[in-house]
């Protein structure tokens, strides 16, 4: 069977929505209808709640939903990664059991990869999965887990073979977060927000059928999850927007958005808020100071150049050109910009930079910038990792000598944690 044409998709989605879309339904009721129709996840296979459309074609579906201001399936957070991983590597049972809850939003997911002992080195995970009495028994710590405090299920990477080399001793599991032995603690940041969790796992249990992929192939499965995460890094970061309309379904949807976005409300501040520099300088009466103007212009220049570099990269991508170096330096540029903007906001604020909350300029926004920018050069790959990647992948320079990948993991030095 051939793929539908764009017009066919448009027509079918319009027909479906005309018949079924009703903003006075409850969110869950609507999403169950949606999932049954296959239009909630049109890029899923037909046999698994989808329509088997390409990614490009599923953008057309989104388009029509926007026409109707219709709410789509749930897709914020880790759930999208869970869905993709399960579709790729999961068993039929996994698909039956989890895909619907993922799409309706009734079940929330988290990702249990990072550990306190291995920050930039995910494959160094040392959480144990031991097979005892027909079940996997899990012990270890995970960290930097968003939404773990309200997640139903976790995507878990754990070590099942300590004699295998680093990347070959890991297996991938779905863990029920609502069980004894799984303790979630919020991790407060220096800026006062708590966007992440630490998860302490003590003798938690997983039935063997909740292993995903082959034993010892966990890193391969995790790579799928990570690839979708990276791919989403641009796309999915367009977090869902709230919709200001009165009907019931919008109210429920807005609550969902608020709930899921809560950990991220300070994210704009970690960029350094270059957009506020001139406004801040004018408000503080410093915009006439030549030294301040020099510093503002430096940051503004760097931020604009970084923005144009990103647009060069996108333009090249849109023209189907091979990716040039300009696509890889954005994250590093963002670190420079944020750090420099922090400096200049401090210079502008003067003594007021000592204050926080509503005693700080712009109702605390400036203060939040000053203690949030250090995150940008760490989260999602530190500056050091970025420079490694740029030099090795883009500039083709020699790789760092590795001593940890070709011997039994139990012999590799690692951090003592906890």
């Amino acid at each position, binding site marked *: 069977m051939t793929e539908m044409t764009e017009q066919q998709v448009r027509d079918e989605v319009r027909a479906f929505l005309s018949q079924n879309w009703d903003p006075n339904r409850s969110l869950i009721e609507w999403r169950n209808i949606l999932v049954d129709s296959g239009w909630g996840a049109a890029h899923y296979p037909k046999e698994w709640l989808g329509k088997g459309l390409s990614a490009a074609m599923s953008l057309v579906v989104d388009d029509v939903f926007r026409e109707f201001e219709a709410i789509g399936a749930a897709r914020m957070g880790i759930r999208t990664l869970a869905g993709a991983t399960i579709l790729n590597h999961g068993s039929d049972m996994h698909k039956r059991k989890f895909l619907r809850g993922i799409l309706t939003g009734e079940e929330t997911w988290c990702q249990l990869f990072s550990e306190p002992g291995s920050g930039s080195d995910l494959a160094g995970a040392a959480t144990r999965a031991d097979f005892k009495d027909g079940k996997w028994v899990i012990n270890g710590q995970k960290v930097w887990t968003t939404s773990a405090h309200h997640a139903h299920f976790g995507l878990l990477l754990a070590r099942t073979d300590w004699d295998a080399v680093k990347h070959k001793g890991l297996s991938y599991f779905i863990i029920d977060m609502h069980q004894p032995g799984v303790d979630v603690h919020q991790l407060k940041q220096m800026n006062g927000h708590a966007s992440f969790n630490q998860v302490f796992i003590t003798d938690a249990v997983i039935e063997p059928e909740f292993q995903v992929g082959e034993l010892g192939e966990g890193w391969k499965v995790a790579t799928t999850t990570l690839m979708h995460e990276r791919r989403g890094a641009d796309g999915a970061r367009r977090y869902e927007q709230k919709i200001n309309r009165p009907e019931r379904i919008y109210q429920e949807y807005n609550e969902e958005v608020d709930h899921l976005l809560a950990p991220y409300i300070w994210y704009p501040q970690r960029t350094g808020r270059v957009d506020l520099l001139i406004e801040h300088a004018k408000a503080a009466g410093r915009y006439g100071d030549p030294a301040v103007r020099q510093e503002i212009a430096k940051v503004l220049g760097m931020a604009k150049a970084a923005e144009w570099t990103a647009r060069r990269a996108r333009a090249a991508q849109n023209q189907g050109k091979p990716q040039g170096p300009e696509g890889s330096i954005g994250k590093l540029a963002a670190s420079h910009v944020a750090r420099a903007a922090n400096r200049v906001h401090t210079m502008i604020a003067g003594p007021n930079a000592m204050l926080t909350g509503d005693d700080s300029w712009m109702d605390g926004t400036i203060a939040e910038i000053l203690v949030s920018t250090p995150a940008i050069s760490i989260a999602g790959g530190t500056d050091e990792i970025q420079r490694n990647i740029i030099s090795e992948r883009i500039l083709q320079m020699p790789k760092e000598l590795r001593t*940890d990948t070709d011997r039994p993991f139990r012999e590799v030095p690692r951090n003592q944690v906890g």
Partner: protein
Amino acid sequence: MKFSFTAEQEEFRSVIRRFLEAKSPTTAVRKQMESDRGYDPAVWRSLANDLGLTALHIPEEYGGAGFGVTELAIATEEMGRALLCAPFFASAVMASSAIVHAGSDEQKQAYLPGLASGETIGTLAVAEPDGGWNAEAIKMSATAAGAVYRLHGAKSYVLDGLSASLFVVAARLANGHLGLFAVPDTADCVTRRPLKSMDPTRRLARIDFDNTPATLLGSPEGGEAAYAKTFDTMVACLACEMAGGAERLREDALEYVNMRVQFGRSIASFQVTKHKAADMLLEVELAKSAAYAAAAALDDGDADASAIVSLAKAGASEAYIQTAIHAVQMHGGIGFTYENDTQMWFKRAKASEVFLGDAAWHRERMLQNWSA
């Protein structure tokens, strides 16, 4: 100018360091920074009575120990290192220096012994809500009313303004001169409001004076000179405090990377980490040298002392926050968490960057005072 500490000074530093290691470990700092008062009165008493630190820079005839700026700066350097929560800088550096430089003999007799013993906690209120610490920015007016004066206006960024029982306040006299005034916390018409401090180990307040009775320290013409000397002293001490904090951050970050393993090897074995550590050493050592030179220049009465003091503060402003940024980065994700101690020094570095004037302002002041 001297470029080394005497054996006595080294010993003095060791005593303070041991004291602070015992009394102000980070657990204690966390406790105080989350407390209402913001410091531990028992530690304050011990620091005053057992070590005599509050008396350091006050002349012996007023109950002090008569030490120079160098010794005072050693104390603040160690306190910066330990991130001690205490009104020491406000009382023993700012208020005490102001009274030493501005007060008449009688006034010194009245105020200094209490400050020296630590019974009185003083502070110095200079900056106004829209201003800084430069004398020209002071607009608050003082009107003469017989023997006393009356103060009108607001002071902001007042260090330990809630803990203090004695305010020294800079205000403008009718003759256009600057005056430094003593105001006890029992005076009428003083309203204090805590400000939300980014750095919870260093509390700030706004204080409103509404026709508040005040005593002019010294003569109606001497305020500028007294404030200039006071300002130099407190900036030199702040620069040393900042250098101490920066060094602590540097050492802790180094210890962390030495301990930490990634990709099967010590993080400290990565060349980039090593070079960053070397750069941090360079920055911190230069900041220390400048801060020490500032204190020494004041003790020597060096003609360029004000320039050197501003040089030191400008350097410390850059070095401290830069070291803090590096330290967070070297810790990785954990360095951005509240539970990791790095953030406490980061916030002190950020607040110190602008306290008593930022780097750009001090650079300009440095050139204006440079004789060469």
